[in-house]
């Protein structure tokens, strides 16, 4: 079996200027800006792009055929995921496999989201509700279970009860990630956040408060992937895809949770971390302690706890303590989401995190620059992961 370690690289990233968009703005508009920025970053011409992978289609996002037509591309390898978040690392892994296999030379991974395009996310009547046995966040409109936040709230309550944590402990995550955002000029959240402000903010779906929820300010990101060999020709330092692993699925998995918590049909008797989840470190040839910063899909604050435990940065039930005392904030032992995350930068479904990881590894992040980072990891509560290096 071939190991793809360092055989592929990110050679260009681009994004639009993150801001709230009215529903009248087509997601093609911010994507055009992001696409142009990524081409410039990679030193490529539009005609060089022969592969396109789209994460999130209509109605929030764009579809592969429309992007290719609208931007005048000539594509020989394309694919598109479920119209849903959480798929970022799966898409990037797919791109790496495609260029390694010679199915394309340069794959543009594309995500553009205007959340306002489909009304309130999760409100009854959406396509998610049409799934035969419940929506992707356990949506059951006839029981009033109508929003993605409901799933995370179910898991957060269970976590609090099982491990003795509280909402004020969860606020520590939001405060730390906001501190990162304040050092990022393109983050949409500009004001400091305190635990008290978090605690006095309204409940949306209890026990989650307003500030446990991410922004629904979308945007567009483009990430260009090619082989390590071709990457040498670009104007920028290549950022190598050193390790990758796919998203897990099955009855051990549940939205808002990590395996073993006991949400939906999860068995509570389950090893955390599971050896299967730690294979990424073997592929990358690094130890967990070599990771300079961690990035995760913080659509809700509690995902940070779930993801840190899943990858063994702390034991099951200990993340609520692990994140305190500045450990995941700026200058901490393990900074998490140095861009400000989905919570405070913008919600481009994790693609804004990959843009950040790339820029951090190139040393382009100004005030928030990590000191000489060697390895950065993406990992979520669903087990998918990437390890990047410069």
């Amino acid at each position, binding site marked *: 079996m071939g190991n793809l370690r360092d055989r592929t690289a990110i050679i260009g990233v681009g994004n639009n200027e993150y801001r709230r968009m009215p529903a009248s703005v087509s997601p093609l508009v911010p994507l055009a800006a992001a696409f142009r920025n990524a081409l410039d970053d990679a030193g490529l011409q539009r005609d060089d792009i022969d592969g396109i992978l789209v994460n999130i289609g209509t109605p929030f996002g764009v579809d592969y055929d429309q992007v290719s037509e609208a931007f005048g591309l000539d594509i020989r390898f394309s694919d598109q995921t479920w119209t849903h978040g959480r798929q970022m690392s799966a898409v990037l892994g797919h791109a790496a496999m495609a260029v390694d296999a010679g199915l394309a030379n340069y794959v543009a991974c594309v995500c553009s989201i205007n959340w306002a395009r489909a009304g309130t996310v999760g409100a*009854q009547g959406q396509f998610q509700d049409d799934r035969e046995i419940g929506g992707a966040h356990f949506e059951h409109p006839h029981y*009033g279970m109508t929003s993605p936040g409901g799933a995370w709230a179910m898991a957060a*309550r269970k976590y609090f009860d099982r491990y003795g944590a509280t909402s004020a402990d969860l606020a520590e995550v939001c405060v730390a990630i906001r501190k990162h955002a304040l050092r990022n000029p393109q983050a949409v959240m500009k004001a400091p956040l305190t635990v008290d402000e978090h605690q006095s903010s309204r409940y949306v779906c209890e026990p989650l408060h307003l500030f446990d929820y991410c922004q629904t300010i979308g945007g567009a990101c483009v990430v260009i992937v090619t082989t390590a060999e071709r990457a040498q020709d670009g104007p920028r330092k290549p950022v190598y895809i050193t390790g990758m692993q796919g998203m897990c699925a099955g009855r051990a998995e549940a939205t808002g949770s990590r395996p073993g918590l006991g949400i939906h049909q999860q068995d509570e008797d389950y090893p955390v971390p599971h050896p299967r989840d730690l294979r990424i470190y073997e592929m990358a040839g690094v130890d967990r302690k070599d990771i300079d910063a961690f990035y995760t899909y913080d659509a809700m604050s509690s995902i940070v706890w779930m993801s840190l435990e899943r990858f063994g940065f702390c034991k099951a039930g200990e993340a609520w303590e692990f994140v305190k005392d500045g450990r995941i904030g700026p200058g901490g032992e393990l900074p998490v989401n140095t861009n400000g995350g989905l919570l405070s930068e913008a919600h481009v479904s994790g693609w804004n995190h990959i843009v950040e990881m790339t820029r951090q590894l190139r040393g382009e992040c100004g005030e928030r620059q990590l000191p000489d980072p060697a390895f950065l990891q993406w990992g979520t509560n669903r087990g998918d992961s990437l390890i990047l290096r410069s």
Partner: protein
Amino acid sequence: MHASTATAGASARTGQEVAKPLPAISDFNRPFWEGTRLGEFRLQRCKHCGKVWAPNGPVCPHCFSDDYRWEKMKGTGRIATWVVFHKLYHPSFAGDLPYNVAFVELDEGPRVIANIVGVPNESLRIGMPVKAVFEKIDDEITMPRFEPAGR
């Protein structure tokens, strides 16, 4: 839920009556909704391995057999976790805010989404024993709810 779960609520936005969403009856969940009309909380039980499961599906997720029967459960269980909606998403729930949604772990094992009635939200707790009750909405739909079982 605090308020009665009648079939309609007033929309906060329009002041007009908006119908509550009803379950979508399909070929493979129909026996469940036939059961609630009879006051039964049914799940599928595999005739091959003997296990029950939720959510409903065309095969046993434990052994992949498609030989199963719909069976009446005891209708008792415990609250596995719960949430309280404070924000209004669907306008028909305007009169119910704040309302709860729970995962109930049935005594037979599977967990199901449910509303807990007959108890203030403030008194809900994980592990609380509950039992199924049934609320007729119309001739076709009877909604299962759970209330404290006082065990």
